Every structure is written in C-alpha cells, then in structure tokens.
C-alpha cells in the first residue's frame, strides 16, 4: 500500500498517543452464537496484544464499540473492523485523544434483541450516543 489517503492516516498518529473511539455498525448477515464466540475470542486476543481496552456490545443486528489504546494500533484495529465484510454501515461517533484510560480490560457483551421497539421509546443506540457525548 504505497499511498494512504484516508482520514485515518496511521503514520500521522504516534503510537504512544492514547486515543478513544466510539463506533457503531450493523452485522452484514445474521451471526450465529458460534461466530460471535469466535469474534470474541479473536478480538480479545488482538486487543490484549495491542493494549486496547474497552467494550463491544452486540445487540443483533447492531454492534456498539468503545476502544481506547495507543493511537496507531487502535486505528489499525479500527481499519480491520471497517474492512471486515461481517460489518456494514460502520460509523465512528467519536475519535479523540484521551488523557487517561477509562477501562482496564476489553470485553464483548451480548444483549437481547428487541422484537418490537416502541417508536417513541429509548433504543439501545441511544445508550452509545449518550455515552459518546458523555465521554467527550
């Protein structure tokens, strides 16, 4: 990859800069429990190796993620998620330098889906949007 023109230019962010990302996506296809187990296991492995902490909430078909860690490694992980065909409509709600970590670990959590959400009721996406604003 000779040229990189995307906004997440890895070389522009020093690896020691602590960054925090809040993002949402949708599963491109329904994921089985086994596929989620696999995602959990691999993500935990890669995130621990990269010094990335935070959490990923899966509420089919949505993913809500918070990740914090060394800038270049974090952006590299985010790039993996963005280019992963299992995710679609990946939106980064917040990307900012962080002075300190909020989390000491990384975990994946599964929440039940909702059969018939009330149009006027709170939805789980409000949770991550609220959190994104609060962390700012």
């Amino acid at each position, binding site marked *: 990859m000779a040229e990189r023109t995307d906004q997440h230019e890895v070389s522009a962010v020093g690896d020691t800069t602590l960054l925090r990302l809040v993002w949402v996506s949708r599963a491109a296809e329904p994921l089985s429990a086994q596929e989620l187990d696999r995602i959990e296991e691999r993500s935990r492995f890669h995130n621990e190796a990269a010094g990335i902490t935070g959490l990923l909430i899966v509420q089919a078909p949505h993913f809500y993620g918070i990740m914090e860690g060394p800038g270049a490694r974090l952006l590299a992980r985010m790039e993996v998620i963005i280019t992963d065909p299992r995710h679609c409509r990946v939106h980064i709600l917040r990307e900012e330098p962080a002075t300190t970590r909020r989390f000491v670990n990384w975990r994946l959590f599964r929440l039940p889906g909702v059969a018939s*959400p009330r149009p006027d009721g709170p939805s789980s996406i409000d949770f991550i949007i609220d959190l994104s604003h609060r962390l700012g």
Partner: protein
Amino acid sequence: MPGVCDRDTVLVEFRFKSVLCNADAAAVTRMVRQCWRANLRSGVTGEMLIDGREVSQVIEGEMDVILPMVARILSDPRHTEIETVTLGALDARRYCGWRVHGLPDVPACAADVATGAIAHFPVDDVVATRMAGRRMA
C-alpha cells in the same frame, strides 16, 4: 445469543469494578446516597462493595433503565480503572433491594437513617464470595 424478547420485560444486569478517584468518607457517602436515590426511583436492585478505593458493583433492572445508567457510570469521573465484568440478560432478579457493604464509618444524617439510604452493612465472607474476583492489591 439471547432470544428476542419484548422490550418491557427484558431484565439485564451490569457488573463492574472500579477504583474511586476520591475515596474519602464524605465523597463516598455522597455517591452512595445518589446511587440509592437513583436506584430507588428507577427500580434498580443490586449491591455495592466498597473496599478502600476499590468498588465492586452489581446493578440489575429493566434494560431501558440499566443502559442509560451504564452510560452514566462509564463516563462518571469518580470511577477510574473500570473493569467490566458482565452486561447481559437475566431471567429473574437476584436481588430484592439495594445494599452497600463496606461504607466508611461516617455519621449519617437523620433523613438517611430514616429512609435507609445510608445503612451500614458488614462485609462478611458471604458478600466477599458473592462479589468474587475482586482485584487483588
């Protein structure tokens, strides 16, 4: 993956540990009082174990209530070094109220005593086991 449920009946629990940035008795008492009020108002049950600066907490309730509470906790500057343990569906509540164990010994005001907002419950082996997996010093 948990089954699809009707929103009104989805119970979830959130378990986490954290380190308080300010563990002086007055600050902790203030936090406990706020938790108690918020939990009573919103039907949240569970317990909190305070051990010096370290806190282990379980909250359970309806998903629509717990998720905004999780957002507030995760962004609350009083909590640092947050270790998330569980966030997931429950078949039934495990607690019938809200208790705090290990509260620093401070005089509670009369209103607190009357309402039970500030009550001193001992940290016994049963509690310590229930909140197992506390971070070791």
